[in-house]
């Protein structure tokens, strides 16, 4: 970005940061940033050259080689577990696929190492892709189980399919590669090669969270349902994460095979997968540095803990429990928290933020949403029982009804969290009854939740940027455009000065506003608000009412669920009343709120009789 203009106009907020944990933190002044990068490069180069500076025994070189190759696989765990929050108990399998591709490729098929390496990465990535595609829709416990099963089957095949894999004896005599006539037969040279690969992997894993995909991954980790509804194709992003993780596992394994010249099924069993998992957790799963730190510690630790002898592994198991209890963010997370304490967030210049563009031209007189005989049944319960409804463009349409009358269920059917049992939903003339939530977000349907669903361990602005990056959002593609859009949305709800704060540290009322900003950043033409006033105090409610009125002026259609009748009467154009999943009244507020059936539904039959 250039600052050539002489005017003292504030520069728009920068888009990237020096901090891998919190990518949206404003950039330090350029000179300091350059200084840091140079320092980092110098340190990294020195570390890489240690074997050439000091005389190290072959044993120590082996340990370093193990650490470097394992660390690449562990960085895969950072992506899948740390960023995306998906468990993977089969990383040793992908590591093994890379190793066997190089082992069998070079020894049996006589392939060139580099070709075998590419093959290994390809096979590992493909395995991860297929496994992810078939099982990631289940998630959670299932994923743990499936990955373990995959790991077990892999080991059975390695041991028993001896015609191809050479069985329990393993593959020996794996040669070192050469490059431009240079052979990496010297351990030091090969270690340098591994280090270069490791640095490349670290750079990639460090860079990833700041990208659209990386932000989507973290949103999934924080709240998968909200991520999907905000417009992220969660299955696709999870499969990408799994594939990347597998590919990194494959690279690590391929380098391992050539480094140690010998591989056997024991190198790639379940306990190795657990070891990778422990490494990433100990170091800190949410940053590239953490993974490498954890790997180095757990490989060097056994050397220091020799005195524990046979009980070493028992202590190791105990350590896993203790890490989970006392070090949930790992060692790097702890260091990071310490460092962040001394960091002052750069103030956001609110006057420089552009006004949020929310305008939706209302020219078409047809309803934006029409429901035809919509039904949602849970077993025998008819939560939504044949609703036919039209919502006109540019209006605030409110859904009211007693508790359990099916309001939230209806919203969930409208944005695709639930599949309709019957009937159909037409949005902007298109039948969307069978589309997924993120596809509906892509059409311009925004949503907030009754029990706030934000991404607590991401900053306010990142939360809102996730909303801005929905498909078809007319705001431009670059990170800068997303950031500006998010800032404008925050300014609209009067939260811009909190942009850099972590969402989990915000009070309740502010979280509500951030959730609305997240929806608005996506430039929705249709906004579903589920009890936005719940839990707000009187002042906050008043502000919300004004906000809703401001929205109306832009041609945006709002579909609102609300219990606060004062607010409802103030903002609504049309009210629909539900009871027991059925529509019992509809019309203008003045008419509906005095309708005898509505009063009966709210106050009971006696009230009706007395009225």
């Amino acid at each position, binding site marked *: 970005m250039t600052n050539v203009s002489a005017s003292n106009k504030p520069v728009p907020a920068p888009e990237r940061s020096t901090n891998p944990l919190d990518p949206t933190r404003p950039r330090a002044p350029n000179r300091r940033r350059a200084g840091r990068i140079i320092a980092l490069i110098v340190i990294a180069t020195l570390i890489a050259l240690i074997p050439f500076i000091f005389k190290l025994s072959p044993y120590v070189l082996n340990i370093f080689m193990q650490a470097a190759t394992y660390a690449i696989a562990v960085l895969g765990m950072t992506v899948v577990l740390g960023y995306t929050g998906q468990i993977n108990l089969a990383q040793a399998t992908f590591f093994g696929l890379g190793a066997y591709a190089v082992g069998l490729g070079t020894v049996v098929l006589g392939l060139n190492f580099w070709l075998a390496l590419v093959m290994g990465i390809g096979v590992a990535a493909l395995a991860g892709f297929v496994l992810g595609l078939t099982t990631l829709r289940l998630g959670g416990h299932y994923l743990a*189980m499936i990955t373990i*099963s995959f790991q077990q089957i892999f080991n059975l095949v390695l041991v*028993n399919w001896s015609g191809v894999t050479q069985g329990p004896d393993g593959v020996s005599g794996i040669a070192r590669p050469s490059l431009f006539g240079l052979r990496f037969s010297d351990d030091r040279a090969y270690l340098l090669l591994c280090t270069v690969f490791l640095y490349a992997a670290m750079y990639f894993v460090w860079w990833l969270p700041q990208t659209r995909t990386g932000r989507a991954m973290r949103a999934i980790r924080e709240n998968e349902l909200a991520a999907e509804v905000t417009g992220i194709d969660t299955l696709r992003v999870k499969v990408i994460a799994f594939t990347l993780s597998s590919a990194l596992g494959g690279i690590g394994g391929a380098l391992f095979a050539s480094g140690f010249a010998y591989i056997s099924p024991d190198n790639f069993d*379940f306990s190795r997968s657990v070891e990778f998992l422990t490494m990433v957790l100990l170091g800190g799963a949410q940053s590239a540095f953490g993974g490498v730190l954890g790997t180095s510690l757990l490989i060097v630790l056994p050397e220091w803990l020799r005195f524990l002898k046979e009980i*070493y592994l*028992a202590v190791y*198991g105990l350590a896993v429990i203790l890490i*989970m209890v006392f070090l949930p963010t790992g060692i790097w997370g702890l260091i990071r928290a310490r460092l962040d304490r001394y960091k002052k967030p750069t103030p956001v210049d609110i006057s420089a933020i552009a006004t949020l563009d929310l305008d939706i031209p209302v020219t078409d007189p047809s309803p934006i949403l029409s429901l035809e005989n919509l039904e949602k049944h849970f077993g025998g319960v008819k939560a939504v029982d044949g609703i036919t409804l039209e919502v006109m463009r540019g209006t605030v349409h409110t859904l009211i009804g007693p508790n359990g009358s099916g309001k939230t269920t209806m919203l969930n059917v409208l944005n695709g969290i639930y599949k309709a049992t019957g009937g159909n939903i037409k949005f902007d003339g298109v039948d969307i009854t069978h589309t997924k939530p993120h596809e509906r977000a892509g059409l311009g349907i925004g949503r907030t939740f009754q029990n706030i669903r934000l991404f607590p361990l991401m900053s306010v602005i990142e939360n809102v940027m996730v909303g801005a990056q929905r498909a078809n959002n007319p705001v431009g593609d670059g990170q800068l455009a997303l950031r500006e859009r998010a800032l404008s949305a925050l300014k609209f709800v009067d939260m811009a000065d909190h942009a850099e704060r972590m969402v989990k540290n915000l009070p309740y009322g502010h979280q509500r506003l951030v959730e609305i900003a997240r929806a608005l950043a996506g430039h929705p033409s249709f906004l579903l608000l589920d009890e936005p006033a719940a839990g707000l105090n009187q002042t906050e409610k008043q502000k919300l009412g004004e906000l809703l009125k401001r929205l109306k002026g832009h041609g945006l259609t709002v579909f609102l669920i609300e219990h606060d009748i004062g607010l409802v009467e103030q903002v609504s154009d049309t009210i629909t009343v539900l009871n027991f999943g059925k529509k019992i009244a509809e019309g203008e507020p003045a008419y509906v709120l005095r309708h005898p059936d509505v009063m009966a539904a709210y106050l009971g039959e006696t009230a009706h009789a007395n009225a």
Partner: protein
Amino acid sequence: MGFLVNNVQVLFAGLALGSIYALVALGFVLIVRATNVVNFAQGDFAMLGGFAMVAFLSGGLPYWLSFVLALVVLGIFGIIFALGVYYPLRHRSFLPVIISTLGASIFMQNTALYIFGPQPRAMDRIFKTQGIEVGGVFMDTQYLAILGFTAIAVAFQYILFERTLLGKKLQATSQDKDMARLVGIPVASMIAFTFIYSAVLGGLAGALVSPILFVSIGMGSIIALKAFAAAIIGGFGDIRGAIIGGLLLGLVESFGAQYISVAYKDAFAFLLLFVFLLFRPQGIFGEKISEKA
């Protein structure tokens, strides 16, 4: 005729094996229901049951006393497990808890390795006679014992859960902890009881299967994996599902080993699991999985 006899024999062995999976799966499902925790150390309860019996028997105690004492030891261990592994993490998401139980599994196996050494231990069978023959079908007495004890355990559990006040409290706890607490059920005790009971079930499975499989530190892992697969196949969190899934898996495994491949016998369970996850992820008895907004 020989074909039929042979198949009946395989069926019998499959049911016995399946019963072991069912017992471990049952303990696993009970913990899932009470705490929403997937306990990856469930199989190691079986391993501990086996080693506890070996220890008591080699100490010269009579068989049945050793059997009962082993179950008591496992019960005590269940409390320790609940306090050490579950309790500190009870308010966290499922991921840290899963990982913590994995750590517990490593800890238990390696502590057993330290105490008992790497050699698998043989254990006496419950009955002296090797087997009885009925209509040409040879029936191993240990298999009969496994089937018998499993039937008793299932019946006991049914009565406990459906016919006693304690059972009602346990069910209430698993359905809604906050509500249970409001009506005065001591939720923490109920959860502790669930861990004790699950550990005892695991120990029972270990004590029963040890004469067939030998007692080794790795025996728990493979049983646990099959039991998890059984629980998912039956319908995650469903008690009937755990039993039916376990039996089904035992049958698939023994018929697979008989007719397809002995080397890949452990893979059949996982392949069956994959098939279920692809085409019926909710399992045999399970409800559709969905999250509430």
